[in-house]
């Protein structure tokens, strides 16, 4: 069936963007009611527009939530649709399915947490101007857009937040921080990957209070088989790879070159105080 107007199927994008006005929208919906492929496509495209919404996030005024509570209290809810659909799973089964999915995600998140607990941020001072490694923008983009990307956030002890996005599949992670305490001009934040016997610098933040760095953290992304005894007994400050004595080789893969500064003071910024072994233990979960 041919229509002189744009082929309805090509309007799937405009429909998902709510860029069809009344008559166009109605026409597309009539078409989509008979076109499973269109419906499937719109569903997929709406996942993309939802990300556009997430990117536009702005916190609403707090008063809105209270006003809403009063509003929902006097608003009757719609009952579920009960169209008979023999082949479809029943509502209760749907919920079970959702819950099962939830458990899988949770396991993934815990696995991620266990692996990333071994990431620590140190402050080091450097006489080297913070030129940093060559742009790893491509690598960063790859991790940020990886389908299996896991995002973890933590409060930084001295202020600010740290975020890690990592992909187990690509064995890479991106570290980003915002709102960190500002440092004197000669100092910068440096990211360290802490693991048994091989603590190593994993790049530094480009700006004194925020920034993003990526690195290929093959060992750090491996799920630890058991608690990290070696490092627990051997706090990172006493480690053989101490940047004060031992220039670090670039990490294989090159995304994060372990550029070594001359440390002024070093501080354990995320997680328990490093002198308390119990906390370290938990940290490595």
């Amino acid at each position: 069936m041919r229509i002189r107007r744009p082929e309805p199927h090509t309007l799937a994008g405009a429909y998902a963007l709510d860029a069809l006005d009344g008559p166009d929208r109605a026409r597309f919906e009539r078409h989509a009611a008979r076109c499973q492929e269109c419906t499937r496509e719109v569903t997929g495209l709406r996942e993309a527009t939802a990300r556009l919404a997430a990117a536009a996030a702005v916190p609403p005024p707090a008063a809105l939530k209270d006003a809403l509570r009063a509003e929902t209290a006097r608003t009757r809810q719609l009952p579920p649709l009960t169209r008979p659909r023999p082949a479809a799973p029943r509502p209760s089964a749907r919920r079970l399915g959702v819950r099962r999915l939830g458990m899988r995600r949770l396991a993934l998140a815990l696995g991620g947490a266990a692996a990333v607990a071994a990431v620590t941020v140190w402050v080091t001072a450097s006489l080297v101007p913070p030129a940093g490694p060559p742009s790893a923008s491509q690598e960063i983009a790859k991790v940020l857009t990886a389908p299996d990307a896991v995002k973890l956030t933590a409060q930084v002890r001295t202020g600010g937040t740290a975020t890690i996005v990592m992909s187990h599949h690509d064995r890479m992670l991106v570290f980003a921080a915002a709102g960190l305490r500002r440092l004197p001009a000669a100092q910068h934040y440096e990211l360290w990957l802490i693991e048994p016997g091989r603590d190593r610098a994993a790049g530094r933040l480009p700006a004194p209070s925020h920034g993003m760095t990526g690195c290929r953290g093959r060992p750090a992304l491996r799920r630890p088989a058991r608690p990290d005894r070696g490092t627990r007994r051997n706090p990172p400050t006493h480690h053989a790879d101490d940047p004060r004595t031992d220039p670090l080789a670039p990490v294989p893969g090159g995304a994060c070159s372990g550029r070594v500064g001359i440390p002024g003071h070093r501080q354990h910024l995320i997680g328990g105080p490093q002198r308390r072994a119990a906390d370290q233990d938990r940290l490595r979960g």
Partner: protein
Amino acid sequence: MSPPRSPWSGARAGPDHADLAALLARVAVGDQAAFDAMYDRVAAPVFGTVRNVVRDPGLTEEVTQEVFVEVWRAASRFDARKGSPMAWVATIAHRRAVDRVRSEQPSADRDRRAASPMIAYDDVAETVEDNLDRERVRRCLGSLTDLQREAVTLAYYGGYTYRQVAGLLGVPAGTVSTRMRDGLIRLRDCLGAGR
């Protein structure tokens, strides 16, 4: 076994579909606490999206409130087979914002004509450091052709119809609808947002 006390918390990057779906299922049976928790998770994307389209602060709050009352009313109609909970909520929010603006066309048109095609994209780019979601979206928008990106952002962030976008860009409407579609497909693939 005590739960590991890691300073890190988080989950799969992007909106956590399973948790939100579970919350919506409880909202559907009138659970106010679940509604509050759901609100905390999606209020900022909803409010930001509505604000982008309607612009007026008072109207933004009004439409945002309508969106959440609708989510409360219709929570039982959410169907995980038809997309993620975030997409469901964002669709309600965007649709309602756009419909509101179009019903008040004459004045809104005037106000919004001032918005240059790149504003929405620049807004996204500006806050890169604060928000990884933004960063992912910004990078992916950057991978579209100029026409794809302008068509998508003018429609989504500006609330324009594809015919209006065609007028703004001086491009045939058929071309705009095609670019919207292949731009969104590319965006979806880049964001790993498809299923």
